[in-house]
């Protein structure tokens, strides 16, 4: 398996109001192979979002670098998309559902028919056919996040970066979205880096887990998740290996609740 995305010694410090600097991330290194589903898990406030923004080219690292396809990135890359946690803020409220997906395609060299085609097929993929003319505010949270996923898929990226995308929907909806995402991943063979503080979510979804801990955060461990695919909300969560991984992660990052 070839390494598609390589995080090499990434650190980040932010200036503080009193003139000193606050180090959030320290010497984080891990590689992501093509087609992997890597979950980055760490407690709330450990800088996961910052790390994802650095990987996505939205924020320059203080030290280290992110290499994609052999080259160090200096900004957002065409083959990567980011799905944000706050779907209500990342959708364009003045555009309809189809307008929002179309938005992602407008600066790609595609002809009009192809754009329309991709809008339709990707909305179908996430199960939103029939809602094309709705505005985001007319949809539930889970549906809005589906729009964001369809929009990301429409760009046909190699890598999807996801920042706690399901953390602000209710538990039932979250499980539905998790299974939807797993289905998409297996169908389209994307490489996914998924950041979450929810340990069970990470164990349920990932093919590999990176654990962050400490202040500043550093990667304490990286291990392969051997749970078989396809996964099932009941059977997988009852699998003894699921429970072992869950315990292991809990013990390593030192949180009892995962919240």
């Amino acid at each position: 398996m070839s390494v598609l995305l390589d995080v090499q010694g990434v650190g980040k410090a932010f200036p503080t109001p009193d003139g000193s600097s606050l180090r959030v991330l320290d010497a984080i290194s891990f590689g992501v192979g093509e087609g992997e589903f890597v979950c980055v898990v760490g407690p709330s406030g450990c800088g996961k979002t910052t790390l994802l923004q650095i990987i996505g080219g939205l924020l320059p690292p203080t030290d280290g670098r992110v290499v994609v396809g052999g080259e160090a990135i200096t900004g957002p890359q065409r083959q990567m998309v980011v799905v944000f946690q706050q779907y209500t803020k990342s959708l364009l409220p003045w555009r309809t559902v189809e307008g929002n997906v179309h938005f992602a395609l407008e600066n790609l060299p595609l002809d009009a028919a192809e754009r329309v085609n991709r809008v339709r097929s990707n909305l179908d993929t996430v199960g939103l056919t029939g809602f094309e003319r709705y505005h985001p505010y007319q949809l539930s949270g889970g549906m809005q996040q589906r729009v964001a996923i369809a929009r990301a898929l429409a760009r046909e990226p190699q890598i999807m970066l996801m920042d706690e995308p399901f953390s602000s929907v209710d538990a039932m909806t979250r499980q539905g979205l998790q299974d939807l995402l797993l289905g998409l991943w297996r169908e389209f063979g994307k490489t996914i880096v998924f950041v979450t503080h929810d340990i069970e979510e990470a164990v349920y979804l990932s093919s590999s887990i990176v654990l962050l801990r400490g202040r500043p955060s550093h990667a304490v461990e990286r291990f392969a998740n051997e749970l078989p695919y396809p996964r099932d909300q009941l059977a997988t969560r009852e699998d003894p290996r699921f429970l072992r991984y869950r315990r292991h992660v809990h013990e390593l990052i030192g949180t009892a609740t995962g919240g």
Partner: protein
Amino acid sequence: MGRTTRLRLGGFAVLGLLLVLWEVASRAALVNQVYVPPVSRIGGELWRLLLNGELARHLGASAVRFGLGYGLAVAVGLGIGLVMGYFRAGYLLLEPLIELLRPLPPPAIIPIAILFLGIENPMKIFVIAFACFFPIVVNTIQGIAGVDRVLLDTARTFGLTTREIIWKIVLPSASPNIVAGMRIALAIALILTVISELVASNDGIGFMILDMERAFRIPEMYAGIFTLMVVGYLLNRLFVVFESRTLAWYFGQSRRAQE
């Protein structure tokens, strides 16, 4: 008939009753008939001015000034507001100037405007534009400041250029504020149109009112004032239609948020 409808009709009844009182008071000579002529006479004069084209001539002259002044203010106000709202350097460079000019009551610049532009249309258009500029620029800046970070990051991950970000994200997102500024400016434009015509003019509705007063043609003077009321009312109605069309998404969203 619902309570709201009844009260609304009641509101018109209040207006009608006052006009009847005015008519009666004037005819019964309870007030000075010369200064307060009966409404019916004012109406008659209004009708006459309407038929002989005099009203249309004055209204037309005012409309040109109003339209050009307001249009100029919208264009320049939006442009400068964008430069100041989106680019930090633009804000820092222009803010002191804007903040110094803004508290100046706009009629105070009429003498300067006359000095440089004479007493014809250029002066009047400039004065109207000057006064309308500030609410538009201030609201545009405020609207742009409120554009969500996540929305901008979304645009960046899709690789949008600054130009595309401005057109597709910043301006639509700021549009509720921009439109609010335009609405305030609309009322100001009408005020300055009349003031500039009172100061120096030989046509326009403001001139007509002053001219009739000087000629002691009091009913015609009132006819001009009534016309202004109706014009102001219609402009506002027109703007409400424009607003509800352009901001349908915004009002829908706000309604949903209140539920």
